[in-house]
């Protein structure tokens, strides 16, 4: 378990360094994610110790964004004043995103798979 944790921290640190000195527009942890992905591709499998720690952390991902989300107390008056607009924007946006993504998948895969069916 410790081995996996150390390796995840190392990838996180490499990502932060890369973000600091080379790619400042991309968050460090995302660069760490890409580096880990490359490492896994090179290894050809997910080593057990990384899998164990990583899966545990991801299982409780929700816990990790509670501290930042509680900051909502600072924005309550502003959010209340704009509640209707924000709720509409969130609702329209998520429904439109699901419709466009799934609709396009259906359309494109039909176009790609139909010629194969005729053979």
């Amino acid at each position, binding site marked *: 378990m410790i081995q996996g944790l150390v390796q995840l921290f190392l990838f996180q640190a490499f990502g932060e360094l890369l973000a600091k000195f080379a790619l400042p527009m991309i968050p460090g942890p995302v660069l760490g994610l890409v580096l880990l992905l490359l490492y896994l591709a090179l290894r050809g499998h*997910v080593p057990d110790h990384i899998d164990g720690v990583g899966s545990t952390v991801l299982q409780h991902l929700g816990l990790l*964004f509670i501290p930042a989300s*509680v900051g909502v107390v600072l924005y309550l008056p502003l959010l209340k004043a704009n509640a209707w607009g924000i709720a509409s924007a969130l609702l329209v946006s*998520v429904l439109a995103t699901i419709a466009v*993504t799934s609709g396009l*998948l259906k359309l494109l*895969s039909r176009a790609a798979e139909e010629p194969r069916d005729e053979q």
Partner: protein
Amino acid sequence: MSNELPPISDIWVYLSGSPLLALVLTLSAYWIGLSIYERTQRNPLANPVLIAVVLVAGVISALNMPYAKYFEGAQFVHFLLGTATVSLAIPIYKGWASLKRRIGVLLLALFAGAATSIVTAVGVARWLGVDESLVRGLVAKSVTAPIAMGIAERVHASPTLTAIFAVSTGILGAVLGRFVLNGLHIQAWWQRGFALGVAAHGIGTSRALSVHPEAGAYASLGMGMHGIAGAVLIPYLAGQLF
């Protein structure tokens, strides 16, 4: 004199100066949230994060504890977000082998969906006259929360608002997604799952996983791909919108 218990205010001063109070508060609120979620058969409306945030916000308001003070202790939990983001490589890698033959179609749908998410959210909010400081928080809200908060810092949006909007988006997508999918007659599990992962990230993904394993695998991939693409592209897109 020395045998008397210290006054309650002294105990309070000691406790609130230690990170333990914020940590215990955060973890127990999440624990309560999780048990309610389990007891409602994982109903997306009983989202454990939402329940925990309401509980913690209520308690610190009742205690008159400033948010900055709470965060000072809770930052140890917050720090692990970066580690969790790195760990997202694991499900992406595992899903990759079986999904790569469809990668072209998936990428096109991802970019169209991601653009739709930002343009509709910002468009509707501006049209309804929402305060500009809140509109910025909408830009990264369809990306998984740990990455969304990192993006938010780079586009000068509030990571807190972004996290709140991301969680709300996830819940809305998980609850209402199937009505849109059924309305459009989307039957393939991989198409339904991927759309949920792109639009409603982690919360949509756990919903997809509970419905069908194939939908879950594609939802994880949709969430992961949206995270990476969003981190690269959203800062540039935000530059155009603001």
